[in-house]
């Protein structure tokens, strides 16, 4: 949680490494690089779509999500928690 965090660019794992199947309120994601299956729910698919391959900083992502959606709980730290989860699984890469 230091200041340099603002410079980190988050990007979705390369699309060819993911296999995505929408079930109901959940989405099954097979991550080819790890061979691990993840079951994700909102807001993860929305975050992945927003980040895309180009990637963006946390602040840009928050701004983008605020434009596309009515954020019900823009609590500071919530987005960090989601990004941390996604980075840990490899679904999102940092640079």
């Amino acid at each position: 949680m230091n200041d340099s965090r603002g410079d980190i660019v988050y990007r979705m794992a390369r699309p060819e490494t993911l296999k995505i199947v929408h079930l109901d309120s959940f989405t099954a994601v097979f991550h080819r690089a790890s061979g691990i299956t993840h079951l994700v729910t909102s807001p993860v698919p929305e975050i992945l779509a927003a980040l895309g391959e180009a990637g963006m900083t946390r602040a840009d992502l928050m701004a983008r999500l605020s434009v596309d959606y009515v954020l019900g709980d823009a609590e500071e730290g919530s987005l960090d928690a989601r990004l941390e989860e996604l980075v840990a699984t490899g679904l999102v890469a940092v640079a």
Partner: protein
Amino acid sequence: MGRALDGWLLAQALRDPGGTVALGADEWTALLAIGRAEQMIGTLAWRLNGIDVPPSVARILADARASAEQGRVAALWEAEVARRVLAPLGVRMVLLKGTAFVAAGLQAGRGRSIGDLDILVPRAALDAVEAALLEAGWEWVKPDPYDDAYYRQWMHELPPLIHRDRDRMIDVHHTILPLTARITPDAGALLADAVELKPGLWALSPNDMLVHAAAHLFADGDLAGGMRNLWDVHCLVAEFGADGLAGRAAQHGLSHEVARALRLAAALYGEGARLTPVDRLYLYRLTARDGWGRAMRPITRMAFYIRSHWLRMPPAMLARHLWTKWRKGGAGPASG
């Protein structure tokens, strides 16, 4: 082909895949059982890829190849996760054994079964590495204080850690032989001469890979898994040759072990070698597996088991170790 239903059946199939056309159903059955018992079914499956085999065997081998491929993906991912965790420390993380072979795309990695992630780091960085791994979700496997103290005082690695989400183990080494062994390899040279496979992922130099395989086989283990280990040696020599190997082995104090590993690998998988009587005893132990995949020759196995501990520890310490382990009911060679 020879018809002995022991480890030689596997060795001959790996040496001469075309020769398997002569195998009957019972020999195929024995070969598959031995391959599985030696954890070499994936290696065998790749080696026999494209060879004309009975349809039932073809199915089994195709499944083994797919299974090994999945194991390769999981092993490389585990290495990648460890790389990400250790990157901020700025230390060189050197992959060892199976993970290194598949990361480097070596023949030895083809179909190889890979269990734990083995890495080598500088001894001075051990505490920082341990802290970073614990922070990132790895946990101690054994809460046993004797084992823990033993590892920390005498072994060449941290006590094993397992990741709480991925169920995968990591062995963090700072050298390739226990500190109790009478031989002290040059750990600094291992690290200094490592090669970078891709940013942040390193492997030992080819000669050091061979030295490590030999050290692992003779000084660190009781020859369990020896057939696989010698296949690694065979493939590494075939791919890289042995230029400068003798000098490197001498630098690490492992000349005898490396020379023996080369002879045994050549005897099992290559063009053969001039064997000493002791070499023959090693081969007798290494190939002690019957057509049902069972361990054979228990007396020879026990002798090598005791010898492996003898090489690792001074006598008084060995006695204390075996006594403590025995009282806990954990001693004795694997029956598998």
